[in-house]
């Protein structure tokens, strides 16, 4: 079977179907079930091509440029946010501060990671906003989940450095994203999967117990018989357990998604890996494993080669080309459009998936925040950092293009907290929080 077909058919469709069947009872119970707000950060690297990214006009009547075209279906449920600037100075080069301060809003420690320019740096001095929200949710039994947050990656290099980490649990505590979908699957379902696997081999194992005990004296056979009884008991228990799990009448149990086999972490598999990760994310929301997630596509200065778009050069290399290099310029538009397609795919999957809490679709309760470490690749500017949001997890006014002029991005971090119902006076470096959250965003 073609892997794409496999993906199209896999996991979630069954899960969604069974949920739909369980829906009447869910709806009845929903009066008592609060809506589950969720937050997802999607990162793509190396800046965008602003002219083909930002709508020309702010306001409700905005146009979607080439890069954002894939999001056309969601125009009513999205917003673009221009004028957000990462003002954090201090150690580290533009890319490092771009990713390391993006969600933390605070400087990097002095350290020994030297970029192409500026001074060397270490890790961020503070917690990132996703981890802050997760901690708040986990502190309240009503919103606590098994994992709190899940950090997905796509082809993030197996190298812990300032360019590869966006999320921080605290000062000097970078959170490593999991780039291997199988590893993420293990984290989410390993236990259930192992039990399923165990259940499927025990009968054969019991057969071999009989084979080996044939030649034994009755006394020696005693311990083996006892052992075999244990094997049979476990088998019986597991059967009952699995039967109960697949019955799916409570609505809280959902099918374990299936991943296509043997997808190696290689550049050319990036599209599949991205889709696998998105499926795992959707499924973990269905199971309420977490309410905060991130999907980090490669890393700051990431070098994916989008061979599936017939682009042979690495993204970061291309992003340094001057705008006058028309070929590179065009490729960068197409690369960024591909990222937008991934965001759109995620939004679509959320839109077609009913929220297990009974309140609309997943997308109605989830805000996807797509961002980047730079405003534009060849200038390394951290002004006008791309922020595009889709979905209704935050109480923001949607269907609008915003332009805030030139405000520190700490104010947006405060707005995110406000929109999530967790307002704070400051986040990150307080110097940039003086004017509080952005105004005019909240419905």
């Amino acid at each position: 079977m073609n892997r794409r077909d496999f993906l199209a058919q896999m996991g979630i469709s069954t899960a969604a179907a069974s949920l739909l069947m369980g829906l009447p009872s869910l709806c009845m119970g929903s009066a008592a079930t609060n809506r589950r707000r969720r937050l997802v950060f999607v990162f793509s690297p190396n800046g965008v091509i602003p002219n083909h990214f930002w709508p020309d006009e702010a306001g409700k009547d905005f146009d979607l440029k080439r890069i954002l075209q894939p999001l056309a279906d969601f125009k009513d449920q999205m917003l673009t946010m221009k004028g957000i600037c990462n003002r954090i100075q201090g150690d580290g080069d533009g890319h490092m501060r771009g990713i390391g301060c993006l969600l933390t809003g605070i400087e990097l420690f002095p350290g020994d990671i030297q970029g192409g320019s500026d001074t060397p740096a270490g890790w961020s001095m503070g917690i990132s906003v996703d981890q802050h929200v997760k901690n708040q949710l986990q502190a309240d039994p009503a919103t606590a989940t098994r994992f709190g947050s899940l950090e997905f990656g796509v082809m993030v290099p197996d190298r812990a450095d300032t360019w590869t980490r966006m999320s921080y649990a605290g000062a000097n505590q970078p959170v490593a994203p999991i780039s291997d979908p199988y590893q993420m699957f293990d984290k989410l379902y390993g236990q259930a999967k192992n039990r399923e696997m165990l259940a499927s081999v025990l009968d054969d194992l019991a057969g071999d117990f009989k084979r080996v005990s044939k030649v034994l004296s009755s006394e020696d056979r005693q311990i083996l018989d006892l052992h075999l009884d244990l094997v049979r008991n476990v088998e019986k228990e597991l059967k009952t357990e699995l039967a109960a799990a697949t019955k799916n009448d409570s609505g809280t149990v959902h099918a374990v998604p299936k991943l296509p086999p043997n997808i190696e972490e290689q550049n050319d598999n990036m599209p599949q890996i991205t889709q696998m990760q998105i499926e795992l994310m959707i499924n973990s929301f269905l199971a309420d494993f977490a309410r905060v997630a991130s999907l980090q596509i490669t890393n700051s200065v990431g070098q994916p080669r989008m061979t599936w778009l017939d682009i042979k050069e690495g993204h970061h290399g291309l992003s340094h080309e001057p705008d006058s290099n028309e070929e590179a310029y065009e490729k960068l538009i197409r690369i960024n459009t591909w990222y937008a397609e991934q965001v759109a795919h995620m939004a679509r999957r959320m839109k077609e998936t009913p929220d297990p809490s009974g309140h609309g679709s997943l997308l109605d309760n989830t805000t996807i925040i797509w961002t980047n470490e730079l405003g534009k690749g060849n200038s390394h500017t951290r002004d006008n950092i791309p922020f595009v949001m889709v979905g209704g997890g935050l109480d923001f006014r949607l269907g609008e293009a915003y332009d805030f002029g030139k405000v520190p991005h700490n104010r947006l971090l405060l707005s995110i907290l406000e929109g999530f119902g967790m307002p704070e006076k400051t986040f990150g470096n307080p110097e940039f929080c003086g004017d509080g959250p952005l105004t005019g965003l909240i419905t």
Partner: protein
Amino acid sequence: MFFGKRMNDHAITSTMKSLATNVEAIIRVSIRIGCCGIVCVLLSTGCQVSAEPPTDELPASGESGAGEMRRGQKIYTDQCLSCHGEGGRGGTEGYADPLLGDATVSDLASLIADTMPEEDPEQCVGDDAKAVARFIHETFYSEAAQRRNRPAQRDLSRLTGTQIQQSLADLYQHFFGPSYRVKERGLSASYFDSGRWDKEKLKVERVDPVLDFDFGRESPVEGVTPDEFYIHWSGSLRVEHTGRYEIVVESTCSMKLRFGHHDYVLIDNHVQSEGKTEFRRTLNLIGGRQYAIQIDFTQRKRKTELPPAKFALRWVPPGGAETVIPTEYLIPSTQPSGFALQTKLPPDDRSYGYDRGTRVDRQWDDAVTAAALEFGSIAGSELWPQYRRKHRRDSDENRSRLRGFLSELATIAFRAPLDEASQKLYVDDQLAEAEDDLLAIARSCLLIIKSPRFLYPTLDHDAAPSNRVATRLALTMFDSLPTDEWLLDQVSKNHFAPDHKDAEERIRQAALRMSDDQRLHGKMMEMFFDWLDIDPAAEVAKDENKYAGFDKVMILDLRRSLERTIGDVFWSDSSDYRQLFSSDFNWTNSRLGDFFGEGWIPGVEGRVEGRVDGVSNELVQSKPAGGRSFGVLTHPLVMSHLSYFDTTSPIHRGVFLFRRVLGRTLRPPNEAFTPLNPDLHPDLTTRQRVELQTGESKCQVCHQKINTLGFALENFDAVGRFREQENGKPIDATGGYLSRDGQQVSFATPADLANFMANNDDAHRAFVERVFEHFAKQPLAAYGEDVAEDLVKRFRDSGYHMRRLIVEVAVVVATHQLDQEYNNEST
């Protein structure tokens, strides 16, 4: 190799009380009902069992116990025997199975009253049924009765917890090559005048005894600039005792530490970031194993101010305090990749005095499942890529490479070639079931490790004789599987076939070759700590006022010192048991020297290692102190364990020598006693207090044997420090011993005692038995009196050579069963 995917969410923690507790419970119940004779034998020797059923002193209920038993016996003979056979063994036409089970006497009585004898159930009812039920229950039916009646024999056993850990370690190791023993200590170091590995810029190569450096902003070695350098340390970490180890690194610069598997990064501090300088990881590590360790330490050149360069490699061993890892645990050669099981396994039955895998229960089964899953995940991430690299030229048609990998894994795990059915079940079916390679590996490993073919090593009646020999050798010497190429090669040539005239000698040669192995070191050390009754993880608490300075760090130093003492004697050419009692020096350092004085003063200056108070942490030989130091016998770690919080305990010391060293039996005291409070008897010495308390004649029956042995060690106080006075009174260290044949020996000094222990026949016999049971995990008695005598004789003739003794034990285990079967076949 130890974290991430490796850690199963559902790693089972052990909460089950040791099975030994159950046995204790049985014993306690027996005590209450008065079967005291049996109880004492069980408790004292652990493995001898009285073959005689108890015929008197049974609890009275209605009629006298003995009377009821006799009546029950008569009824059994008259009415039951014809079907149920002698001793309820069955095997008749009327009833084939033996009568055994766990029903109570009253259950049995009502069953008999209702149903027996079959032809006329009315014939045996009421008191008759009760009497015969009691007779059956007490004589052969109940578990306690079975235990009593069973002649010492070799049970079919599953792998013990230790054996599972060791076997999985070697199953892994098989794909990377065996670990080897080296004498050198410390870690290899390469200092580069560059920020990375660059042969041209290599300035200094040397062995660093420990890693504890504070270079500041200076150059670490000559020829290297302080503002940019790279140090690569490599070698391995030796582990003496199985347990949880916390590895601690302090580093102010960029640093990576690889551990176990050569590519497994345990600590990744690629980014130096201000304030992040301490890194801790906890691992379960296995005694007798050596784990590859590689460290990259880089001071990177930068525009901004350099941090001072500091690096320390420390650990917290089980029960220990945090210290710089001492040099004797570091070796400069990088050993092949290795594996340590992180899943906790429940403790095994120790009711016979050594671990036995004779019980299976749910908790154990769950733990084995968790272990199998853990191994399956590692097999996928570490063994499979290794196998693929080695076989990259082989054809991979129809997944034949993966098939080859799993077949080899199963063959090693099962200690024999796979038959057709096993090949299908353990390999082919799992491949067919899972399209995904890692999933197929996980399935296959789950089955292989949960298989009786892996878990019951002696379940190998079908295997070739040479396979069976190799299985028993590896089990005896290492608690593990045969995995070394040379041994597998000899097996494949059927080198140990019993019909060969030199078969036994060939087996001995193989055992000899195996005896020079680090894995034997682990099993040996476990035996000695067990013998000396020292739990390496246990704390030793002493009165802080009286023994100021006897703290956790010192206890750790003493543990190192004891390990070194034992290891040195064991691995010396003569490997002479008697030296354990005779060496007049100790392995020491200046800290121990300051505390313990003569006998502990370092004979040479130790290298100053570590920044701990600027004193040398390295163990060196002390200046000899004749008359004050007798090897293991008077080692402070042993003496302090056999003491109370603030005073010595001649009774504990005496019991230890009587039971453990001399192998004699003692029954437990009539009741529990609290030792007399020294504060209430300020004028008495410890010796006098003990004499006062145990002076009554009913105590003296045993204490005349115990006390006089313990008194001979009164020169060693509660922390093992030599003393000549107690409470201002001179120490009286005279003592004596009444031998098995009634001879009285007296000791004027500890030297006499040590000399006696080193050369006494009973002690030699007891040591042989202990070695046998620790290594074979079976009672020596089960192999017959001749075998025991022969081993003692060989031990004596070899000059009490301990390594040779273990070799001979392995030969006995490897040849015994085969001899029997071979002889049976030929007659």
